[in-house]
């Protein structure tokens, strides 16, 4: 298979375009491209920068890699976090430390790299896990001992210790894409932006940087074929632009801005279907306990009582999202039913009076996005009600995401933030960022609790769901008891698609490109 990486229009086409432009300015009915077969046009929020599963930088890259590289298993579309075989015809957990797999017998790599073998599985998994390779996803295979090849297409995955997230957030994800050892050896160990040895339902046939990526159905894929002959992926950062593109008929599937969900549901675009999906993301108000005045637990508690989270979330998300009770979303082990400390401005004033605080001014750093700004403004108003003046500091993404890092020079001045993280469907993905070892890295509140750290480690190796449920609930109780967190929302994901498309979506609304089908 050959693929064609295009790098923008040619000089000839630009010159010809400029000279013919006058004629094109005449108004005429919109031309449509003639296409052979079925074509799906989808929006992703960023262009790809790398096509190596071990070093991927963004979720849209993962979506593409999932379609072009077969993994052992993949998520099933639907409302529950379940998985289905992708590259295997058998996979099962023999005991807490051993997983057996057998590859389908007819999965080939492109570019002449032959059939996929168990040795390729061994290579791909151990490549991610090996610390020397410095994959950011090494933690997904933290419990790996080795992959043993037992037959040409069968093997055993051996773990050092039980690993609860394995079936939820390791095996079905792009981290477990299977690459060809021979291809990677030939490339010197890494894939950049030119895919090699593709093996999935689709093949990446064209990448025009910052313009579009084209996937075509893999003619050699012998199993459930992709639903479309061609999938065109357009990188569009701004969700509002994507919505207009949808309304103009240029794209068939996009995420919408949260602020648009209610409007879209009331008056959906012609031929459009709006789907609301629960998000796994979590948004919180955090207080840095190492910086005054939040070194005082009673002031932290006063802020917890001062914030009317219902109003904050209603205002920021136009009524589309609900308040949260922690960092673990409904449907996952550890989701709590209620918060420990609710909105009680009288209690907040009492606590402030008790501490002799009369003229308190604090700063709240946020990312410069409309939802965050609205939330911050309501928080500012709530705090003013109890006598705290709050200055909102907006930051662009490049600045915001380094504010609390000890590599920078602001972490010891940072007082409050509105944070938002997304996650995979395992509670450990949420709790990992608040452990003591993350202080000054991503734990910007500098929350430091030994019991929490111990429970996090225990949660990773505990396989009993009910015990895990108890562990993660307790961890969120500890977070809230510290006074450093006000849990705001898990947000919501709005999906907009044509009624002629049956989208393949994970329960949180993320796309499974290989599972999209004509309706």
């Amino acid at each position, binding site marked *: 298979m050959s693929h064609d990486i*295009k*790098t*923008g*229009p040619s*000089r000839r*086409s*630009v010159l010809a*375009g*400029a000279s*013919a*432009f*006058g004629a*094109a*300015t005449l*108004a*005429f*009915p*919109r*031309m449509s*491209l003639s296409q052979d077969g079925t074509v799906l046009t989808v929006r992703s929020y960023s262009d790809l*920068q*790398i096509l190596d599963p071990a070093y991927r*930088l963004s979720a849209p890259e993962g979506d593409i890699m999932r379609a072009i590289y077969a993994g052992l298993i993949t998520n099933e579309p639907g409302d529950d976090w379940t998985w289905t075989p992708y590259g295997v015809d058998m996979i099962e957990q023999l005991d807490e430390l051993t997983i057996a797999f057998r590859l389908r017998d007819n999965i080939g790599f492109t570019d002449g790299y032959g059939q996929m073998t168990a040795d390729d599985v061994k290579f791909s998994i151990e490549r991610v896990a090996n610390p020397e390779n*410095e994959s*950011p*996803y090494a*933690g997904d295979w933290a419990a790996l001992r080795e992959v043993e090849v037992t037959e040409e297409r069968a093997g055993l995955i051996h773990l050092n210790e039980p690993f609860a997230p394995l079936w939820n957030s390791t095996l079905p994800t792009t981290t477990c894409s299977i690459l060809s050892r021979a291809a990677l050896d030939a490339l010197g160990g890494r894939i*950049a*932006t030119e895919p090699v040895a593709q093996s999935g339902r689709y093949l990446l046939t*064209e990448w*025009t*940087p*910052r*313009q*579009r990526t084209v996937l075509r159905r893999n003619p050699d894929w012998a199993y459930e074929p992709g639903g479309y002959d061609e999938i065109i992926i*357009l*990188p*569009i*950062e*701004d969700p509002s*632009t*994507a919505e*207009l*593109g949808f*309304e*103009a*008929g*240029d*794209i068939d599937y996009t995420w919408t801005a949260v602020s648009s969900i209610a409007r879209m549901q009331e008056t959906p675009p012609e031929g459009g279907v709006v789907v609301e999906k629960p998000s796994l993301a979590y948004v919180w108000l955090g207080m840095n306990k190492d910086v005054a005045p939040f070194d005082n637990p009673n002031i932290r508690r006063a802020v917890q009582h001062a914030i009317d989270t219902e109003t904050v979330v209603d205002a920021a998300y136009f009524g589309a999202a609900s308040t949260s009770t922690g960092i673990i979303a409904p449907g996952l082990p550890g989701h709590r039913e209620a918060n420990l400390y609710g909105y009680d401005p009288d209690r907040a004033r009492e606590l402030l009076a008790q501490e002799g605080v009369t003229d308190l001014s604090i700063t709240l750093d946020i990312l410069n996005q409309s939802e965050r700004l609205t939330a911050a403004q309501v928080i500012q108003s709530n705090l003013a009600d109890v006598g705290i003046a709050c200055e909102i500091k907006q930051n*662009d*993404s*490049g*600045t915001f*995401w*380094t504010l609390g*890092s000890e*590599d*920078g020079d*602001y972490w010891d001045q940072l007082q409050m933030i509105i944070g938002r993280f997304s996650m995979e469907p395992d509670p450990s993905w949420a709790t990992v*960022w608040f452990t003591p070892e993350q202080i000054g890295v991503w734990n910007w509140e500098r929350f430091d609790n030994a019991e929490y750290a111990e429970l996090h480690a225990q949660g990773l190796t505990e396989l009993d769901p009910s015990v895990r449920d108890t562990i993660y609930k307790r961890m969120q109780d500890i977070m809230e008891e510290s006074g450093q967190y006000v849990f705001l929302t898990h947000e919501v994901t709005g999906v907009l698609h044509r009624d002629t498309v049956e989208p393949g979506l994970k329960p949180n609304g993320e796309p499974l490109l290989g599972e999209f089908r004509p309706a």
Partner: protein
Amino acid sequence: MLVYATKRLGLAVVIVSVAMLLLFCMIYLIPGDPASVALGPRATDAMKEALRIRMGLDQPIWVQFWNFYSGAWTGDLGVEVLSERPVLTVVLEQLPFTLALIAGGITWSVALGIPLGCWAAVKRGSLADRFVGVVSVAVIAIPSFVIAIYALLIFAVTLRWLPAIGAGDPGDLGDQLIHLILPSLAVGLGWVGYIARMVRASMLEVLEASHIRTARAFGLPERQITYRYALSIAILPTVTLLGVGIGQMLSSAVFAEIVFARPGIGRLVFDAILTRNFPLVTGAVLVTTVLFVLLNLIADLIVGALDPRVRSSF
């Protein structure tokens, strides 16, 4: 002329050098760690440090500047560290889209502005003149992003005559041109007003000139006088205005590229700043600076060649 050209070229080199220094300083005053932003939450300290070394951020700032400066003069703008593609390649991929957008904007502004200006001048003091005056000021006053959004809503969303997003099929020139219509209108419409006002003012001056009166005395048709003898002279200040306008159209192009989700230098720089992709920011801004300086240099040389007074006054 040779002396003038040499001096002008020397000045262009100085301008580019100063721009590079300012650019470098501004980039490094922006807060935020490029390695943390680029690699995301799962990166370890070792990975971030490795990326900083690959980006050359571990070097003293003067060494970084020297590497950037010396590389730039040899055409080596470095490597985009995440995709490992040469920065110059990445920039040159995007440049044609922006140039096409600006060319389209100029086409709109010339195609509409010159006839409107001529019409207003010929119909001086009439209702038509006043109408053109109001329209000209109105399109100058409306920000280009507002024009972009309304054009998109009307022609793409409501009427569905034109596409809303993208730059068209890479292999299909017709499709690319259709995708260029709305964004270039957004970029060029404001300039319709400037050009109409400028052409009207110049035309009124020229129409009073003695050679035009002579032409009228010979009984030449009014249309021929206006478009053949008056406009050919009145158009010269407009050409100069357009030369300056290219810089402003570059700014408008950023909005158009974002609103219409088009590739291009504006969006490239915008995204690169957000992700603190310093090699890409410096490379893209440097290329556009050089381009702008080069165009101005060419314009100055042409003017100098045509007008000896300009050469002697430099």
